[in-house]
Structures are given as C-alpha cells and as structure tokens.
C-alpha cells in the first residue's frame, strides 16, 4: 500500500459515530404508541431509570461533600441501555460490566443499598468494600476496572455456557476498542461460535478523548472483519430498543453466534468526577432521555420524586451504617 492509498482509504472522521446502521432487517417503524408509560412494565422501567439517575447524582453529591473515598464513574445519560436489556437477559446469563457499571448493576439487581454500601465501605457492601465502584461480583454479574480485560473472560464464560441457551454479555465502551484483547476475543468468539453478546456504549468520548480522535473506521466494520453481526441502536425508547434487540439476542442463544450491539449514547457527566473538559454548553445540549422522553408528565414527576426520595433514604441509611469488615483485614 502506498502513502496515497493510506490517505484515500481513511474514512471521514465522523464515520465512527454515524455508521450505526444495522445488519438486521429494518425494525418496525411505528412505535410511537409504545412511548407512553401507561403499562406496569413501562412504569417499572421508568422507576428503574430514575433510580439509576438519582443514584448517580447522589454519588456526585457525596463526592462533592468529600464523603466518598477514591473515585467513581457515573453513567448519567446512559441509564436506558441496561434498563432496556434487563428483560432480555436471564439469571443464567453472565454479565460482565466495567468501570462505568452502576447502571448495569442496578438494572440487574435493583439493589442501591448494597451498591452504595460497597462504594462507601459500609456494612452490607456487595463485596465487603474491597472492590468498590468498579470491581463487583454477585452471582453471574462481574465488573472489572481494566479496559478490554473482560472480553476474553466473557468469551471463556460463553465457552462454558455454549449449548445451554445462556449467553455471556459484556459491556464495553467506544474507548475499549483501542485494546488488543478485544480483537483476540472477537476472533475466538467467531471461530468457536460462542454465545457472546457485546454491548457497546458508544458515548462519543473516551475519558477526555473524543471518539473521532481515537477510533479509526467504524465499530461496525471492525465487527464485520471477524464475521460478527453488528446492530446499531440510536433510539432511546426502551420498548423500541427491546423490539429491535429481542430476536437478535435470542439468536445468540439459539444459533450460538456472537453479536455486537452498538448504542449511540451520551455521557452527560464527567468521566469520573469534576474532570469533564467539554464545554458546558456542549454537554448541556446533549440528548437526555430525562428531558426528552415522551412520558406522561404527571406520572414522570411522581416517579421522579419517588426515586429521589428513595435514594435520599438509601444514602441516609447506608451512611449511618458501621464500616464494612473484610476477614483479610481483621
């Protein structure tokens, strides 16, 4: 390849964010009626979304007041991703989360007390306060703090599960695609036909680096390079997302083939705390399901207040608990 070829082959810098079109048949377009949170399911989804939102806001508040140790990474703006996936994943499925995993955990277990106790090092902590925000293991849910590390591990879990109908789901971000382990795992998953579901939360920014400055080409093309199907999600509507994804995720189980699902989403908060280098106006203008949703306004306001109250209570309760105990440090 000549230098000229190299130049002409480079796709536009926006490609990584815009090329989300799906390998699946076009989803049914008429979904407006699914917006209204009138059903019990939709109300439960709304409650869960708001629980995660207020949990994350409470964490930033606690940090601001110096009441948390270390660091945290909130998923503000991305809450709908794990909420949409919740009914599509079962207890036999392994879920591998990452550094930005509070939403993943809360969507699976709805246990703000255990998670906050873990983050605050208080009695009742899921992992005795050893793991903290980004290292949590509960049943078949596990998070780790090193980028790309969990994808080969998830492939191993998928190998263990192959043929059982269960799958291994691994959440990664757009930045994770810089890690070589991702490609080693995708290659193995495709070769060995592993039931591996990769959920990419492409929030357009890796810590402080815009995706357009750290990812050449597209995630879709990268998946395709391994013969792995890719499906892009731009909607934030939970019912619509589920309708799109249910048959695809089912096929991971029945056909035992890996699948990459890429959500185009937005990180509304800092990477960790107080470290957002984006202009405030740019962040304010990012789409937010919280502001843009088609929920019934009265019902939304009630649910919002209820979630806020619940989280306030959790914070008071957990903060008042004794410190967590770990036998190795007794």
């Amino acid at each position: 390849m000549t230098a000229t070829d190299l130049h002409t082959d480079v796709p536009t810098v926006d490609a990584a964010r815009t090329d989300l079109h799906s390998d699946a048949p076009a989803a049914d377009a008429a979904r407006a009626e699914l917006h209204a949170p009138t059903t019990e399911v939709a109300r439960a989804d709304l409650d869960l979304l708001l629980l995660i939102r207020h949990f994350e806001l409470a964490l930033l508040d606690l940090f601001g007041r110096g009441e948390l140790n270390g660091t945290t990474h909130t998923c503000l703006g991305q809450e709908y991703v794990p909420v949409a996936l919740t009914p599509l994943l079962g207890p036999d499925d392994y879920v591998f989360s990452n550094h930005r995993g509070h939403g993943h955990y809360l969507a699976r277990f709805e246990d703000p007390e255990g998670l906050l106790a873990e983050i605050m090092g208080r009695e009742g902590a899921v992992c005795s306060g050893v793991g903290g925000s980004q290292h949590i293991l509960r049943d078949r849910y596990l998070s780790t703090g090193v980028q790309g590390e969990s994808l080969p591990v998830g492939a191993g879990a998928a190998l263990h599960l192959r043929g059982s109908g269960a799958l291994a789901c691994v959440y990664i971000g757009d930045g994770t695609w810089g890690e070589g382990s991702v490609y080693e795992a995708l290659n193995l998953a495709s070769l060995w036909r592993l039931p591996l579901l990769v959920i990419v939360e492409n929030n357009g920014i890796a810590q402080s680096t815009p995706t357009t400055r750290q990812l050449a080409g597209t995630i879709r093309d990268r998946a395709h390079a391994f013969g792995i199907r890719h499906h892009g999600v731009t909607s934030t509507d939970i019912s619509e997302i589920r309708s799109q994804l249910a048959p695809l995720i089912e096929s991971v189980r029945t056909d035992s083939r890996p699948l990459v699902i890429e959500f185009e989403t937005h990180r509304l908060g800092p990477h960790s705390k107080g470290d957002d280098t984006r202009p405030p106006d740019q962040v304010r203008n990012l789409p937010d399901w919280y502001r843009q949703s088609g929920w019934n306004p009265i019902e939304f306001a009630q649910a919002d207040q209820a979630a806020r109250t619940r989280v306030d209570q959790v914070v008071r309760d957990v903060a008042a608990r004794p410190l967590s105990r770990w036998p190795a440090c007794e």
Partner: protein
Amino acid sequence: MRVAENLNSALGDLLEQDPKAYLLGEDILDPYGGAFKITRGLSTRFPDRVLGTPISESGLTGVAAGLALCGDTAIVEIMFGDFVTLAFDQIVNFAAKSVSMYGSRVPMRLVVRCPTGGGRGYGPTHSQSLQKHFIGVPGLAVYEMSALHDNRTVLSAMVKAAQPCVFFEDKVLYTRRMHDLDGLFQRDTIGDVAHVFIDDPATADCVIIAPGGVADRALGAMRQIFLDREITCCLLVPSRLYPFDVEPLLPTLSAAKAIVIAEESTAGGTWGAEIAHQIHQHLWQTLRRPVTLAHSTDSVIPTAAHLEQRVLLQESTIHTAILAALS
C-alpha cells in the same frame, strides 16, 4: 520415564479425571502436539476440551480465566514462557485478583504453563526465566517443574489450591529422566521440597536452594566440590516458589556454614533475593554470613552459544558461589 512424558501423562490424567478440565494453547493439537510435544495425544483423547487457539496469549488466558470463573479447571500452555508477558494483565489483574478482590474467596482453578529458560540458543525473547515477575502477586502461586517431583502430584496440588498458578517448566528438563540421581546422592523430602544430600545431611557444609530447572547444575557443582575438596553440600528443590514457607527448612538451613540460592533468572529483583530475605529474618543471629545469590548476569540472553554461556547461570557459577560462601 522422561520429564516430558511424565508431564504429558499428568495432563492426560487430569483431563480424564476432571470432566470440567480444559487445556488451551497454540499449536497444541495433534499431530503437532505442541512446540515441545508436551500435549501430544491429548487432543485426540479429549477433542472437546483440548483447544488449539490463535496466537493470542492475552485472549486465550482470558478465556481460560473465564472458564475458571465458571467453575471449570483450565490449563493454559504458553508456547514460550517469554510470551506470558502478553497475558500479564489477565493473570495479575484479573485471575489472581478475582480470588480476593470481590470480598469473599472466589475459587479459580487456572494453571498457566510456561516452557522456560535458555541453553538452547533461542535468543533474547525465547530463553528467559520470568519467574521473578510473578513473585509477590496476591492470589497467585508460582511453581517450577522439577525432575524430582512427579507432575501428577504438582498439577494436582495446583488445581486443588483453587487459585491461579504459573508453572515454569525449564525446557532443558523435558528430555531428562525423572528421579535420575547419581549414586553419590541420597534423597528425601521436607514437605514439597526435595532434599538431596551426600551421606549425613546434618553435617553438610553448605545448603543450596535451587528450583527444578537449576537442580542438575547444582548437583553437578555439589559432586565436583565433594570429589575435589570433600566439601559436602545438600540441595533443596522446592516445587512451589511462591508463596514460599521457609520455616520447615530452618533446621536444615541453620546447621550449614553457608547457604547459596541458585536460579537462572537474570540479576535484579530475583526470587532468590526474596527467599534470602526470609532466611535472614529467621536466622540473622546465627548465620555466619549473608545468604549468597547465584543467578544469570544482568543481560539479555544472547543467541550465540559462547555468549549465551557467559550470561546464563552455569554449574561453574554455582561452584564458585559455594566456594566463595565458604571462604
């Protein structure tokens, strides 16, 4: 029986006895059977659980860690131990940490096998002894293969411990005979440490501690020094290098005039330095002099035989170290 056959047989037994055991690695399938032929025949016997992988040390070790997390037993072969650096994150940051970082103990039956060491002219990136880089990692055990330890017992101990283990296998041992000792020597064991001595171990002038790959060189030095000078040494060959419990060895160590620790690692931050520190902690008041370390020089490992020999720990290096320690 050769060491390679013993190890092959131990792996076969493990796969047969444990239906949840997997073996993963590059080029390990028949008819090739692995770069050093250690896995020969196993993929034919257990085609679903002996898996040939792409050249992806991080990926395959991560897959093995995932299997271990799910309750399986996973054995990984890294073709040349030098390449284990590519799997360092999976071993250190995932597998080893998972044992304890989630608050309660998570059993992880994972063994990473690393053909190791020089003396075969493979050059700087195919000859190293990287044990020292895995010493002192919480949740991780380091073992070394030896012709004095049955690999069935060693493999079984590693799996039973239910924590990740890195198993260093000095390549020069594969073609050696198991338990093949010169008539000059006698042997017994102290825990999992093989103890080789001449006549009465209580009267040895010098105690040498050396892992399996170096044992032959240590025995050669012991033999020569005895024949030339009637100086008696005894040799301790541990199976597990880390964590290392020095206490059962203290009676043997405290009786000697000198202690030498020999290993093939290059200089600096060595396993021997860690063991010497433990011995000093226990015996500082009675030692006649500090423990002597013998190892390869502070250098990359050259390919040309005459250069490689200058860098790597030789029988003569141990010989010199013993005499210096007793001087």
